[in-house]
């Protein structure tokens, strides 16, 4: 188990370096190739070429790419100082870049917004796991019944309806129509009930989409598992049916669900852009959307890296959990 862990960690570390290089390449080379001048968008209506050049210097855009990558890497561990025109800006470690648009280091922005997105993703995940798995199991056990067909129709609609549709619908019904929620985000540290109330709709909206997918995969997996020999063995031992389903069949059904959960959580932590936009949640997704609007490359870069990191960590956690669930994986 330990060897397995070490192997996985090492692979993740290598992957992270590769991701940083690739992301960096995309963000710094592509504008160059496309002939887009980032610096000129920083100056006012009557851009003075000298000012544009000064901004370019300050952003470090005139350095060669390898120097930029090196500075970036160094910044993560040792912090970084930007000096230009008599102005010195220090970005302390871990420095994931500095936004000259909003004059903020990226790392605090990320740590400020991360809990919002994490809360959204985890809360929704709890909901969709409970409802998705329950619906999937029930569908599998009552295969072909009205319940099964009904649940799968709902699941299908959940998968096919986009969040900006279900989100806006729930907003206009429950916030602007019935007024059950005020639809405002309250930070968790301010008030738990406020936070909870503000998150219910986003959770449900997001969970609706995912619960549908999880119900489908749970149903399919459960049906497959129920045909396994070891399930028959469990019954032959005289186990109660609820133990057969709840313990023996469920544990096997969890494996593909866990894989999916790892991927989905990783991606969502990177920013549930649509949900955060629709419900105006100040999470990473909203940050990246604003950054795109404002051409704030360092923020986009930072969020992209965090996203990759989140996917990586989520996968690592899944790999470990996988090994906990399925002892055979530990050998591989």
């Amino acid at each position, binding site marked *: 188990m330990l060897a397995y862990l070490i192997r996985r960690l090492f692979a993740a570390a290598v992957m992270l370096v590769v991701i940083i290089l690739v992301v960096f390449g995309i963000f710094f080379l592509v504008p160059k190739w496309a002939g887009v001048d980032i610096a000129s968008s920083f100056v006012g209506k009557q851009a003075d070429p000298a000012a544009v050049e000064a901004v370019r210097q300050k952003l470090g855009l005139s350095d060669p790419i390898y120097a930029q990558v090196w500075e970036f890497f160094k910044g993560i561990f040792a912090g970084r100082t930007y000096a230009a025109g008599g102005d010195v800006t220090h970005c302390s470690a871990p420095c994931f870049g500095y936004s000259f648009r909003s004059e903020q280091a990226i790392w605090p922005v990320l740590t400020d917004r991360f809990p919002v997105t994490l809360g959204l993703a985890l809360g929704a995940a709890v909901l969709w796991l409970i409802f998705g798995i329950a619906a999937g199991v029930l569908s599998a056990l*009552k295969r072909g019944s009205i319940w099964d067909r009904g649940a799968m129709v709902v699941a299908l609609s959940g998968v096919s309806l986009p969040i900006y549709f279900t989100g806006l619908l729930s907003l206009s019904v429950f916030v602007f129509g019935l007024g059950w929620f005020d639809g405002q985000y309250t930070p968790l540290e301010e008030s738990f009930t406020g936070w909870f109330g503000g998150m219910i709709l986003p959770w449900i909206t997001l969970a609706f989409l995912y619960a549908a997918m999880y119900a489908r995969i749970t149903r399919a997996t459960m049906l497959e598992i129920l045909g396994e020999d070891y399930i028959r063995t469990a019954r*032959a031992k005289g186990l109660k049916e609820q133990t057969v389903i709840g313990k023996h069949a469920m544990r*096997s059904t969890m494996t593909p669900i866990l894989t999916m959960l790892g991927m989905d959580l990783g991606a969502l932590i990177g920013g549930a852009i649509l949900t955060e936009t629709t419900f105006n949640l100040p999470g990473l997704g909203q940050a990246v959307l604003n950054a795109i609007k404002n051409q704030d490359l360092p923020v986009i870069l930072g969020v992209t890296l965090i996203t990759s990191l989140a996917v990586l960590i989520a996968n690592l956690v899944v790999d470990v959990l996988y090994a906990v669930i399925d*002892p055979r994986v530990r050998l591989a």
Partner: protein
Amino acid sequence: MTELSKTGAALGEPTGTSPAPTSFLEVRDLKVHFPTDDGLVKSVDGLSFQLEKGKTLGIVGESGSGKSVTSLGIMGLHTAGQYGKRKAQISGEIWLNGTELLSADPDHVRKLRGRDMAMIFQDPLSALHPYYTIGHQIVEAYRIHHKVDKKTAKRRAVEMLDRVGIPQPDKRVDSYPHEFSGGMRQRAMIAMSLVNNPELLIADEPTTALDVTVQAQILDLIRDLQKEFGSAVIIITHDLGVVAELADDILVMYGGRCVERGPAEKVFYEPRHPYTWGLLGSMPRLDREQQERLIPVKGSPPSLINVPSGCAFNPRCPYADVPKDNVTRTVRPELSEVGSRHWAACHMTQEQRERIWTEEIAPKL
């Protein structure tokens, strides 16, 4: 319909009609039918037999002859955990130790499973849960039926593993199925089945998935354990060789019915059904120095939806035309006594069968 009920009643004949069973296990006119889109699959269609404690019954037949369906039927596994699908239709009577299982409360039958009757499956790799340790699975089997703490149960598991011949059982108890070899897995499976001292043990193709050398060890183990625990054992196999030394009685199944039944030495040395001859012909034998060739039963097993009229075996039977008037293709033969406690279902006369056996079949074996 009429014909079916009539033949059913006829098949039930050898056991008599008295509802009070005298045997430890008594199966009367068991029918297991599965409705499908293509029609009714009559996997078992009127089967009866008895088994006493301490005795071994070998049920022999090709795949699809209904032998596994019979065993699952006895265990009550056709009704447990059937979700949504069209349910199996089961009729007849299964008496175990004075209790009729088919009409009993399903939860009562569940409590009997694993405690009074246990089962060993063909492929121990797929029959053991891959995510739980061997020990966990044995402990679970024990604790369903015994109110003991985990420690005690685990001691019992180690004891059982030791008994079935697994080395270092106190260590191996924490291993996972995939960490065992095939033979070890089957030993573990047997340990799990016997952990509650069941009075009836059903072994469904217990050696099919194993190496030849391991097969013999497992069979020896089953025999030893049977002596030790005094259980009744049903061994289900497609291979007469497996039951040759083990079984007291042998029941040959074909197309969901019994075609020959009797004491082992009778079935081996005086078989009275052409299908049994075929099975004997296809059995590899080590005790004969020179065996000319294996004689397989030609053709394929019958459809269980459209069972051939007359004798189900007639399309494959080389002697189908021996009886007169095409009777093999029109009338279903019934079991008739061909010796002491020995029955066979064939239209040929005793004399014809004796002659064919001694003159044509036996010399070739």
